[in-house]
Each structure stands twice: as structure tokens, then as C-alpha cells.
């Protein structure tokens, strides 16, 4: 009976809606604090935005004109109220620098790049992390497990700008080394995947679809990937972003590969550690033992019985990462010269282009908070114990 309830939307009851409502109210208040905080924080920044906007060689008349245009000669309180009334009308202001576009226009222009970068790197990280964590957790303390635990611990300690620089060094400056290394990694993975079926073949165990043919297929695919990555290794560049076009995805993907990998490796390392330890915890429970005693195959226990209850922490961590990626890929974007939000806000701060900074921070903070709220709601969907507790 319980399982049927959990598949419907019944968990979203009146009590839960009330909780979500209070959370939304709190969200609005936090947004207010964030926008106010940004406004006053920027007042602390030394230097005059009007002077920065005019540049050298401007006359005092120009200066006065720009100041009154920007409302800088009004008192602080009045400026704050102006800013807020504009904000509530949905007007985020105009950029101080030519072309004096609406900030919202610029945001809409820049956001897709950052969102694509964040989603791609999250996808890559998850699709690396989930199989690896399952592989490592399947036999704790084995050679595979120790290798991946150690490697992920190392990768966690690499700041994203270092992994970016390292990737540039290997893939751009030494493509010969890079393609050999990538191909060798794929070959190693193929050998590791193919070992159990080969042992099975030798020992004369019965061969089934899941214990023999699927791993062999996976090994063949990995070998194919090794060949593709060796012979079709593209010439990467650190500059030159090509925007997203549905008809011609190649250049876009190529220009995003290195930044995505630089972000994904660190994320994947965190995910592997989180998921592995949760999986080990779940695999120690009695119902797993019962499944094993009944003779369930190991892959079934891992993928069907143990994975879902172990996903709770991963979902939290992944969504926090998504928030951080949307808000915080400043360094990778400036390293690879990607025209995204991070680069926009960074250059805007340096040039004292305050309307842009305010709008960016507000937008990024909103995304961050909304994602956190969604995660809290998703908990109940994922883990019945949380739902019952609430």
C-alpha cells in the first residue's frame, strides 16, 4: 500500500504545502536582504562609477550630466528607494558602459552560456560518478575501490583553476600526450570491465545476459571510445567560444569541452565519495543481506535495491553544486574566455558597472535559493523516511 502512495502526488499534502509556503515567504525576505546587501556593499566600493563610465578626457559638464543621469547626486536613501521601485517594476537598470543596453537584455544574452556549462558539467560529473561509485562500493577495500577513493580524494584537493590550467597544458600544449593518456584510460577501463566475464569463460560458469554479454558489450564500447579518442582527437584551444546552434553542435561542444571537464572532475570526485559512503552504508543493511541470501545477482542488488536509498546525499550535494556552478564558475569562465554570467559579473565589478553587478548577484542568488528549496521538497519524494518524519 505504501509503495502505491509514494508513486502518486499524495505526499504533497496540505501540511507540506504550508511548509513550502512559509519557505517561500522566507525566500522573499532573504531576496530582499540580498538585494539590499548588494546595494549597500557596492556603495562601499571606492571610486566613482560616473568617472569610470566617462573615462579620461571628459569635461566637468559631462561629469555633472552623467552624475545626474545616474542619480548619483541624490542622497543615499533616495537612491536606494529609486533602485527598489525600479526593481519592483522589473527594471534592472542600464549598463553604465556603451552600448548602454538594458541589464536584463545582457543577462538573457549571457545566462545560456553559463547554464549550458553548468548543466553539461553536472551531467558529465554524474555520469562519471554514479558508475564509478557503484563499482568501488561493490567490493570495498579492493584494488579498484582503493584506486578510486584515493584518486577522488586527490581531485577534491585540486582547485578548479588548477584543473583548468592542467587541462590546457595537456590537451592544448601536448595533444600527443593527451590522446595517449585518454586512450590508455579507456583501454584500462575496458580491461577491468572485461576481466570478470573472461574469468567466467575460463572457469566454465554459466553465461547469462547480465554476467557475460553486457560487460563484454561495455568493454567493446570502451575500446571503441579509446580508438575514437586516439584517432579523432580534436585540436583544442583556450580561446574562441562558439555559441550554441542546434544545426551545428560540433564547434560549440568542442569549445566547451575543456571548461566542462575542468569543472566536472572536481564535482565527480565529490560525488564519488558521497555516493560510495552512502552505498556502503546501505549495503550493510539487512534487506540487502536478505536479497543476497535469496540469490539476487550482485548487479541487481547494486543498481535496483541499493542505489535509490543511497541517492539522498548525492542529490543534496549535486544541487548545491549546480547552484555553485551557475553562480561561481567565474574562474573557469575567465580562464577560457567564455561569455557567461561569471565573466560578466567579474568584469562588471572591475569596471564598477554597478547596475550589472546588482542584477547578476540578485539573479544568481535567486537561482541558488530556489534550487535549495526544490531540493528540500525533493527529499520527501526520494526518501519516504523524511516524508514520514515531517
Amino acid at each position: 500500500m505504501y509503495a502505491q502512495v509514494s508513486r502518486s502526488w499524495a505526499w504533497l499534502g496540505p501540511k507540506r504545502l504550508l511548509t513550502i509556503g512559509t519557505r517561500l515567504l522566507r525566500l522573499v525576505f532573504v531576496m530582499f536582504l540580498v538585494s539590499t546587501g548588494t546595494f549597500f556593499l557596492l556603495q562601499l566600493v571606492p571610486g566613482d562609477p560616473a568617472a569610470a563610465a566617462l573615462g579620461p578626457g571628459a569635461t566637468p559638464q559631462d561629469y555633472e550630466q552623467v552624475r545626474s543621469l545616474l542619480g548619483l547626486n541624490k542622497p543615499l536613501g533616495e537612491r536606494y528607494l529609486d533602485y527598489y521601485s525600479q526593481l519592483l517594476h522589473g527594471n534592472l537598470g542600464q549598463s553604465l558602459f556603451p552600448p548602454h543596453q538594458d541589464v536584463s537584455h545582457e543577462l538573457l544574452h549571457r545566462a545560456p552560456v553559463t547554464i549550458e556549462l553548468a548543466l553539461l558539467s553536472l551531467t558529465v560529473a554524474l555520469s562519471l560518478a554514479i558508475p564509478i561509485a557503484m563499482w568501488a562500493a561493490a567490493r570495498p577495500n579492493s584494488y579498484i575501490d582503493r584506486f578510486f577513493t584515493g584518486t577522488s580524494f586527490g581531485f577534491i584537493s585540486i582547485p578548479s583553476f588548477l584543473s583548468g590550467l592542467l587541462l590546457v597544458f595537456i590537451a592544448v600544449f601536448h595533444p600527443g600526450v593527451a590522446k595517449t593518456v585518454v586512450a590508455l584510460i579507456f583501454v584500462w577501463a575496458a580491461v577491468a570491465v572485461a576481466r570478470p566475464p573472461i574469468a567466467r569463460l575460463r572457469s566454465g560458469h554459466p553465461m547469462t545476459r547480465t554476467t557475460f554479454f553486457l560487460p563484454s558489450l561495455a568493454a567493446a564500447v570502451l575500446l571503441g571510445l579509446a580508438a575514437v579518442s586516439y584517432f579523432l582527437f580534436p585540436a583544442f584551444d583556450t580561446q574562441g567560444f562558439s555559441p550554441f546552434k542546434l544545426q551545428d553542435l560540433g564547434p560549440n561542444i568542442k569549445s566547451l569541452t575543456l571548461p566542462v571537464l575542468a569543472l566536472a572532475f572536481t564535482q565527480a570526485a565529490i560525488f564519488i565519495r558521497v555516493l560510495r559512503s552512502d552505498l556502503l552504508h546501505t549495503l550493510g543493511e539487512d534487506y540487502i543481506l536478505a536479497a543476497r541470501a535469496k540469490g539476487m545477482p550482485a548487479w541487481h542488488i547494486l543498481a535496483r535495491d541499493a542505489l535509490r536509498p543511497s541517492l539522498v546525499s548525492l542529490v543534496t550535494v549535486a544541487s548545491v553544486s549546480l547552484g555553485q556552478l551557475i553562480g561561481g564558475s567565474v574562474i573557469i569562465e575567465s580562464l577560457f574566455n567564455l561569455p557567461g554570467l561569471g565573466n560578466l559579473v567579474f568584469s562588471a565589478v572591475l569596471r564598477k558597472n554597478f547596475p550589472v553587478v546588482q542584477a547578476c548577484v540578485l539573479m544568481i542568488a535567486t537561482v541558488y535559493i530556489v534550487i535549495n528549496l526544490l531540493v528540500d521538497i525533493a527529499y520527501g519524494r526520494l526518501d519516504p523516511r523524511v516524508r514520514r518524519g515531517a
Partner: protein
Amino acid sequence: MAPETQLEVQPAIGIAEQLLVDEVAVREAPSWSRRLTRPWLLALAVAGAALCYVGFRPPGSFDGEPRWATLIVGAILLGFALNTLARRSFGPGYAPSRYLAAGWLILISLSAIFASLLPLAEARNASKTLHSPILARLDIFSHHPLGTDRQGLDTLGGVIFGFRVSLIVGVGSVLLGIIVGGLIGMVAGFYRHNVDRVVGVFTDATLAFPPLILLIALATALKPSVWTLTLELAVVTIPVYVRIGRAHALSISQREFVLAARAQGARSRRILLREIAPAVLRPLSAYGFVMVAVMIVAEASLSFLGLSIPPPSPTLGNMISSGTEDFKTHPHLVFVPATALFLTVLALNRLGEEAQRRFSHRETKL
């Protein structure tokens, strides 16, 4: 007769467990590294050491990728052989990484503290390096062990003075976070109700800023120096510690010893300072190592973007950033400070893992 009775008494789960243990034991049959006997390992270690020596002391024109490959292969061989030998001699309790991590941190702290007393080549003042070689390559036995940059400034000296900045800023901001944030969080978790709500909203608002963007904004607002950087990073650490301190204070104030103190007539302030603060401090400081690592990375990121202490005085981040100009031809200018940063963060994370396992084990289920 005896084993049979035992089997009858043993519950079904016990039997299943035993079967599984047997299966695992069969699967984990002798691994290939066990077949390497001691003399082979010794030979491997000697070969690795020889390769390392060739890498460090390259004969004549032996440089570039082959040299690095030699050095890396040698280091891996040496490390693997010594590690396996030590594991065989010391038995299963052998876990050197925590001692290596602690040793590295002690080494860099001591060298950062006594940097002015060390016989280092000039690393900060470019007007004194007119006679130094420019862009010298790595040579462990020379006057510039880790090479020099475009201005002839010593890389080893730069890294050590960079550690000074990183450690002051990282440790300082985390201490501020523990003291200020921990105190606020403790008060919020102890009094709850309205205090908790107000503190919670402000913490949420601060944590809603993406940390790096908040830091960039703060860094442009304040003139960069070690002390302003510490304050800026503390703005990031304080709300985190408020959260952690609040969570622990919430659970600890439900415990018996707090009730006992209250029954004895202790006032709230006394309970806070004498009963709750010591109990909260332990988990807070257990998070300290990891937080220091995060803050060191944050400082390095800021100075990589050029928003921290400006170039004449070295930090790890600005050394990496200025090294990218000659990245293709002289990669050591990036890789030396980068490795220093990486090893420090790795060591702090390793000790942080240990500290969290040890200190906050009981309180993990919050």
C-alpha cells in the same frame, strides 16, 4: 557433534553472512602485488631512486618532457616500492598518509614562520635580482632549487612567502569564524525561537550569495592586505560556522548534563559558557581543517584573478597567474606553486577527514 548444534542455534542471517564472507575471501585471492618478493621491491626502489636522481640532476641537455617523464616514473616507482615494503614490515595498521600530511603542514608552517631566517634567494624585490638568472629551470642542487621567474625572482622563496600569506589568511579567517560564528550559532541554538529566526534569516541571506562573487565584491571594496583578506574570508566562514554551531547547540542543549546544570540552578549564561561551549567547540574545530583548506583555495582564486595582494609580494595565486604568461615554454612557473597549493590542500583535507571522524562521530546524525 558440536559444530552441528552450533549451526542449529545460529540464526539464518548468521549463516548467510558466513557464506558471504567465505565468498569474498575466495574472491580476494592473492593479488599480483603479493608475488613481488622483497628483493624485487628493493631493486624497484633503487631503480626509482636512480631515475629520480637523473630527473633532478639532468646530465647536459636532457630536459623537457623526457626529463619530467623520468622524474615522474622514478617517483612513482620509488613511492610504490617503499610503500609496499613498509606495509609488509609494519602490518595492516600501517597508514602513513596522516603522518605525511601532518609533516607537510608542520614543514610549511615552520618555513613560513622562519622565512626571513632561511638562506633563500631574493623572491620579493625585483631590483635586487639583476644578477640572478632569468627563467632558470628546476635544479635541486643549485642556488635556485625550484628555478626563477621572468624577473629572476626565486620560486622557492616565493612559494614560502606565499605560504605565509595563505596560512595567516586561512587560519585567521577560520579562527574568526569559529569564535564569532560559533558564538552566534550557539546562542541561536540555545535560546531558539525568535533569536534563532532572526539569526537564521541573516545566515540564509549571507549564504545565498555565491561565495566567490561575494569575495570579489568585498575585495574590490577593500584595499588588499593580509588583514583585510582575513576579514573578507571571515565574512564567508562566519555564517557557515553559525549553521554548524547552531545545529550542535540544538542537540547538546537537550542532553542530560545541561538539564543537570539547570536543576542545580545555573543561569543561562553559565550553561552556555561552561556546559555548551566546550561541547560545541570540538566539532567546530573538527571542521576547521577543511575550512582552512577551502579558505586557502579561495584566497588563491582571488589572487589568481588579481584581487588579492598584488604581484611584487608573492602569493601562490599571483605566482600561478603570472606564470601563465610563460606557461608553454616554462611550465614550472605554474606547476611549482600549483603543486605547493595542491599538497597543502590535500594535507589539510586528509587531517580534516581524520579530525571529523574522531571528534564529531557521535554528533554526525543531526
